[in-house]
């Protein structure tokens, strides 16, 4: 498995298609970050797309390609806050589910249970580097070794980060996990 840093370098050399791997790898963490700010599925998807696009445009300014994931989540949060401010100026605007349905986009589900919303909110409260590993491990079900390879970190580091993140999640989402 190629690491984020390798893929960033490949993209910068001109292979634009390689960026798709980064999108696939981090899309859930980015969406979760946006959702925590916007609390709206479709607005979060828009914000996540905007964040990826911005990251692609600014990829040549990324000084530490091995930190791509955390950098991307910071962009996602900024984009989401910007969209939230814009929506605040138009508080009664409803984007609901109509636009997606109108063009026939079938999402797997249109509602999140209260428990899932709570765990998402807890996830968004983690530091960015922990959010990346938790998303890859528990939302994309990647083995720890693959996460380590993707993030260019020792397996032990990823394991420690996961341990800390789990402890934090447990304390943040007590209501969900009993």
């Amino acid at each position, binding site marked *: 498995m190629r690491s984020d840093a390798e893929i960033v370098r490949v993209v910068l050399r001109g292979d634009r298609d390689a960026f798709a791997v980064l999108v696939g790898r981090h899309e859930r963490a980015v969406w979760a970050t946006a959702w925590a700010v916007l609390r709206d599925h479709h607005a979060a998807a828009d914000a996540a797309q905007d964040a990826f696009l911005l990251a692609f445009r600014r990829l040549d300014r990324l000084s530490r390609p091995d930190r791509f994931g955390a950098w991307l989540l910071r962009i996602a949060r900024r984009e989401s806050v910007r969209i939230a401010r814009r929506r605040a100026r138009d508080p009664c605007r*409803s984007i609901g589910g109509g636009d997606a349905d109108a063009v026939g986009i079938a999402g*797997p589900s249109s509602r999140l249970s209260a428990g899932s919303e709570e765990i998402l909110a807890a996830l968004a409260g983690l530091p960015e580097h922990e959010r990346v590993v938790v998303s890859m491990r528990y939302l994309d*079900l990647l083995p720890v070794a693959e996460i380590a390879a993707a993030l260019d970190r020792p397996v032990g580091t990823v394991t420690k980060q996961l341990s800390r993140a789990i402890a934090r999640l447990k304390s943040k989402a007590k209501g969900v996990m009993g």
Partner: protein
Amino acid sequence: MKASNGLEDQMARLRSEWPVGSLVSGVMGRIGAVAAATSPAPAEEDRRRGRGRWFAGLAASGLAAGLLLAWIMLAGRPTTLLAAVRDGLQKSRSAYLVFTSSVSGSDGHRVEMWYRRDEGLRVEAPDRVIVEDGTHQWSWAIGAAAAPNAGDRVVLRQRSPGFWTTQLPGMLALPDVPGAWRKARAPELDRELPDGTRARGFEVTLPGAGERGLVLAEAGDEGRIREIRVQARDGGGAWRDARAIRIDYDVPVPPERIALRLPAGSRVVDRDAAFEGRYPLERALSRVERGGLLFAVHDIQPLRDREGVYVVSSVRGTPEYLKRYPPRRRPINPEVVMLDVAYQPMGNMMEGTKYDRIVLGTANRGGVDYSWWVIVPRRFYEVKEGRRVYLPEGDVSAMPGEPGRLDPSPGRVNVPLRATCWSERLRDEREGQREVSIWVEMAVPADRPPTTLDEVARRARGDLLLMGVGGVGRLLGVAAGTKAEGGALRPISSFDPESIEDAEFLAAVRRGLDDLRRCDQVGSIGPEDGLPWLGGGRGGDEPKP
């Protein structure tokens, strides 16, 4: 690393409820669209950029361009997985394809396709048949999806959306796999196919969350692809087949297999004529150009008691705009492809300071976006002793450019037109999608006396029954039982015009209006809401002498 069962269970539930699909194709599509303007890697990109513009321009100019585009794409050596499949098919005289998808807890979904070069194809899904001859496409429902009365069976006909450029990529649904996939050899997958061909295996990382592709191709550097299995990890982390594509080339496909045989007693509806014939641009009541977009108002009618104005409007790009910002083609399914130019509001919203917009329906085809909607004046009120007390209405707006009344003089109305551009190269100062809006004053036609919301909602549904066939148009409203998710408004749902009755639709529209009305409540500012005195102390305290 093992999390507690509670966390794992909760994460598994979150995964199963994940409410949005993969962002990969959307992001990569947008990147492709903006690459001509911005790119982090100039050398290689300059070459691609030129080719991308070429393709985009060709795609925008219709079917002929689509075929030319296919030829150009096939003239070069195929690089991506999708291009390799397309190449194999194009070089064969005939082909038989089977698409299967695995859905847990069911028998899955199976689609078959028969293809004869230069003649056409036939696709059979459990619920639908599609026949295409290269210039036109026909489709009709079968099985449980067909109308119970065979005499009512409708066959939809439309200009071909382009088999090579749109339909096949939509059916294959393969993500952008980088061109070097043939280097990812997986000899353990090598096997002999039922027809005796020895196939070589490849394992490809798919840019979707946790997916991989297992590819079988005939021997040789450019051996034709015979099978693709897309796998995703299950809850335990093991790989499971999600879907598969199997292709047999140059197999006998008799001409009658792909010949058009309409179901007995069926009625043919021409999608293109139905859509374009209802509200043609040349018969619009008003046309106005703004920001490269051409707005048209096709119908207006005041509501009784100055309750609002019903509007049918459309927006499209001017020829110069389309040339400068070629629209992206976005396949929705094998029959529908969106041409992204601009869209009008798709949900209820405040319109400026004095009005609300209630969207009744929307339809989009060929880069033209139609909207059925009602503009209503806001009615501000206070709640006193549990009852609404309405404030006096004024004829002045505090917002620059916004008219104080919808009916400035007898027989005339003010209408706000608004659209958002799809093009990634058109951004506002905050890098958001650029929005274009304008108020227009126009005369009400003599045959449009004041009417009721019920009547215009019925008319909107009637229009969409005609124009929205095949899923290109939807009615909008607040479904019964929908709850607000933190905000004042409940989410908007979309309805197939054929699957909702007039009364049910009207109720959905009224729920949306009621929600907006709740936003009209104003509260009096009391002493407890005042700012603290500048001299310090608690808010509400009397100033010290």
